[in-house]
């Protein structure tokens, strides 16, 4: 028993090292993200104050005076190192500045108002497309009739550019057939309330943008899973099971389980693209999430807002990666075994 325990302890150390390494990566990624976010405006030709003042036609004297006051107000006259320090100070204290687009409004307030809408599109689209896509792909592997329909549909879904679907769906369902609304998150004549009318209006407006993000993601998961399951079914372990006389259903179930692992780490890799697609979709549908906020910020040259959104999306991706890490540990029996070792 002592030998067994020492093995478990060794595994525990291994897992702890794995998690420590992950957390260090996350912290460093946040640091790099924040530094990029701060650095871009400072590395670009011209500075924000110059850019802002160039929008007005000013006399040289007035320009110089305004430039001086505004530089002092925004702190752009300080040495770079000081500005960097101030940026981190604000960031740690949750202060991302004041928005230009929604003037006295704070950047954080705007972002927090937009986040629920983004998550409402993103989370169901990612989870449902992942689950359904994997099931479809696994079912299609090495089954001729199903494969012949799932595979071509998968290729086409995967190849569709987000912006195109975000134009095509509202055109067909909104403008031609008049079955779904194509703009906004709820009926503009309604006030947000916890009532059936409002919630049904929310769902009604949510469906098309959700469908856009869902469809594009679906194909990739289906094809990926189909190919992985074929690999698994040709594996020695599957052959061995078959030789033992196991039912095909059982062999497939094991193949699906093994194939889930690379798919899960693929999910972490695909996050960035889905988020990008979500931004495109929100803009096309005027859906009031972070994507539309980005669009408005670009239109009004609201750099503080842009920088704030960037930080929030970096944090969101880090959190999502962390969740995927945790799921990976529960799904992969080897890591789970060593987790038990760590706790005993």
């Amino acid at each position: 028993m002592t030998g067994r325990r020492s093995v478990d302890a060794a595994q525990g150390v291994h897992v702890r090292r794995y998690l420590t390494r992950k957390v260090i990566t996350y912290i460093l990624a946040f640091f790099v993200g924040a530094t990029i976010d701060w650095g871009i405006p400072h590395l670009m030709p011209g500075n924000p104050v110059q850019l802002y003042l160039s929008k007005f036609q000013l006399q040289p004297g007035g320009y110089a005076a305004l430039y001086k006051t505004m530089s002092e107000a925004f702190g752009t006259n300080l040495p770079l190192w000081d500005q960097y320090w101030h940026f981190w100070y604000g960031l740690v204290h949750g202060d991302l500045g004041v928005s230009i687009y929604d003037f006295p409004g704070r950047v954080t307030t705007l972002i927090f108002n937009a986040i629920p809408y983004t998550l409402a599109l993103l989370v169901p689209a990612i989870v449902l497309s992942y689950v359904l896509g994997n099931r479809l792909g696994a079912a299609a592997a090495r089954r001729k009739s199903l494969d012949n329909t799932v595979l071509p549909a998968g290729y086409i879904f995967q190849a569709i550019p987000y912006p195109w679907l975000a134009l095509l769906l509202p055109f067909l369902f909104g403008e031609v057939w008049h079955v779904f609304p194509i703009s906004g998150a709820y009926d503009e004549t309604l006030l947000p309330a916890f009532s059936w009318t409002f919630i049904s209006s929310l769902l009604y407006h949510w469906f098309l943008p959700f469908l856009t993000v869902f469809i594009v993601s679906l194909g990739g998961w289906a094809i990926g899973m189909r190919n992985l399951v074929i690999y698994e079914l040709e594996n020695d372990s599957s052959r061995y099971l078959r030789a033992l006389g196991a039912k095909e259903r059982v062999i497939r179930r094991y193949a699906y389980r093994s194939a889930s692992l690379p798919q899960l780490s693929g999910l972490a890799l695909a996050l960035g693209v889905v988020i990008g697609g979500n931004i495109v979709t929100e803009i096309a549908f005027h859906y009031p999430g972070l994507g539309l906020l980005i669009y408005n910020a670009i239109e009004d040259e609201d750099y503080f807002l842009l920088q704030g959104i960037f930080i929030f999306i970096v944090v969101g991706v880090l959190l999502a990666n962390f969740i995927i890490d945790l799921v990976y540990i529960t799904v992969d029996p080897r890591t789970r075994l060593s987790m038990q070792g760590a706790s005993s």
Partner: protein
Amino acid sequence: MSGTLSGSTAAESSGSGEPVAQVAGTVMPSVSAPVVVRRRGEFLYYAVHNRKVVFGLGLEVVFVLAAIFGPLISPWNTTEYFLPRQPPSGVHWLGTDYFGHDVFAQLVNGLRLSYLVGALGALCAALVGMALGFIAGYRGGLLDEVLQLLTNIMVMIPSLVLLVVIGAYLKTRGVVFEGVFIGLTTWPWVARAVRAQTFTLRSREFVDLARLSGKRATSIVVRDIAPNMASYLFLVVILLFGSAMLLAASYDFLGLGPTNGISLGTMMNQAMLWSALQLHLWWWFVPPGLVLTGMVAALLIANVGLDEVFNPKLREQ
């Protein structure tokens, strides 16, 4: 940031980072086949007889020809003005847009730009990803740790938002900027995959032998390791090409693309901005998206077909 296409094909998944070691036996067969010469003829035989390869590459050739010769056979160019908002007709094959520009002329010119950006993006991503993947996989040790950290960090930086922040300050952007930007943000998954493959090849006897013979590291990587994953690298480049074109379309749609010239994405951007949906100008935004879907789907189909060619396990039974 990985493309829409990455992380989801068998070739990629079987070679992507950590999972490889955990899914027993999913090493690419091309890796276990150091005899390259004899196999070449065999590959060609299977490629010609694979319906997916023939269909995918055939369709892609049609689009490439359209990109090359389209602007030459188009009766109009993109700067001429005609009666605005005309539906497709014999004179204007795909109608005219809100301003009276010929849509067909824009489409074939946009095709060129999309291919150009896709090729540039794929090239940059492949170069950076392979270089870092080979170095990390072959050298190992501390350098590997650092490069892996860099890769993992890069994966988590949202490239679209990064481009938005850069775009806010960089007012004039060219095609080269967009291509290079896409390349510099999509390399991480290539680096991961190449590193994992190099790792499995590094301890093979023929690599040991090469090392014993006193060859330099670069020469071992280029002459001994890379050829054994050539088919895999080829598939990676195809996927990168497709995902770069899709990414470019998204960027262009948001007005973050090249500030000069028309691409398939900018056409859709213009259509959205000038209410093509409400005015029912479907011929303005349906063709660019349809063509792009076709271009990328053809690549994907060819890719999966080639995967079957290089990899006997996947072939239809």
